[in-house]
């Protein structure tokens, strides 16, 4: 595929991600911040999001696995994940975090566990989508675009 076709593919794919709510306006903000001085800004920030998320999802699984769940701790982790996802525009992940915090307030372990599953699911999807997006961008560069 040539650069032009790849570019069209990238546009279509990106529009789909926004339309389906995987990404929101904040992701556009990140893209606009990228420039010649920081040509990898978006990838760097998103990588931080991946690292943060994986760490926090592990912490959440551990915290919810306790006999006496420390809901303050769980809430603190979800708050952090909500912050990171919101900062990069990972809208679906952020929305699950909001529901998750409500269950923490209610000390509802079933609700929390359900949210954790949803979070893992949404995170895995958005990670795949973002990696596909970056891969397309790399292909365009390689094709001389």
């Amino acid at each position, binding site marked *: 595929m040539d650069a032009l076709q790849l570019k069209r593919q990238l546009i279509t794919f990106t529009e789909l991600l926004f339309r389906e709510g995987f990404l929101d306006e*904040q992701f556009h903000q990140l893209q606009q911040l990228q420039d010649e001085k920081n040509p990898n*800004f978006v990838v760097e920030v998103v990588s931080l*999001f991946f690292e*943060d998320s994986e760490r926090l999802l592990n912490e959440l699984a551990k915290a919810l696995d306790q006999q006496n769940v420390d809901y303050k701790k769980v809430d603190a982790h979800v708050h*952090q994940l909500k*912050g*990171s996802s*919101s*900062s990069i525009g990972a809208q679906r992940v952020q929305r699950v975090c909001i529901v998750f915090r409500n269950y923490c307030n209610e000390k509802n372990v079933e609700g929390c566990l359900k949210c954790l599953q949803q979070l893992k699911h949404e995170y895995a999807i958005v990670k795949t989508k973002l990696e596909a997006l970056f891969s397309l961008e790399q292909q365009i560069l390689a094709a001389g675009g």
Partner: protein
Amino acid sequence: MNLGGSFDGSSSSSCSSRLNSKSEHGGDSRPHILAVDDNLLDRKLIEKLLLNSSCKVTTAENGLRALELLGLRDDQPNCSATGSKVNMIITDYCMPGMTGYELLKKIKGSSILKEVPVVIMSSENVPTRINKCLEEGAQMFILKPLKQSDVKKLRCLIY
């Protein structure tokens, strides 16, 4: 009510490594902003937003580190006679240890730094929180996530 080139301070405790050093950035007229946030991703984001708005940025990961950089730590020798070269402090509200609100109080309680505009950021829109910060002297309260338009508003506070 209002809503809405860099390095991470080293841990050296000598006066010259702090923000009030006169030896660095001679003649650089860009405003110098101290950004405080415990989240690395958010620090990176705000740093880029500020750099793109022609500001010098120093980031700190917590209130204690911020106070250290500002020369306000209780156990520091008083090197603040040279005055601080920070034009604004922007801090997250929710931080472990010292909150942004507590940091705000320390800054406003300092004779040298109380005139420096302080902006509070938070991911949560809590009116009592906002009012509390504004009453304590915060210039502005901004909802996260931060955008270019927010930083434009911030710049207006400096001049």
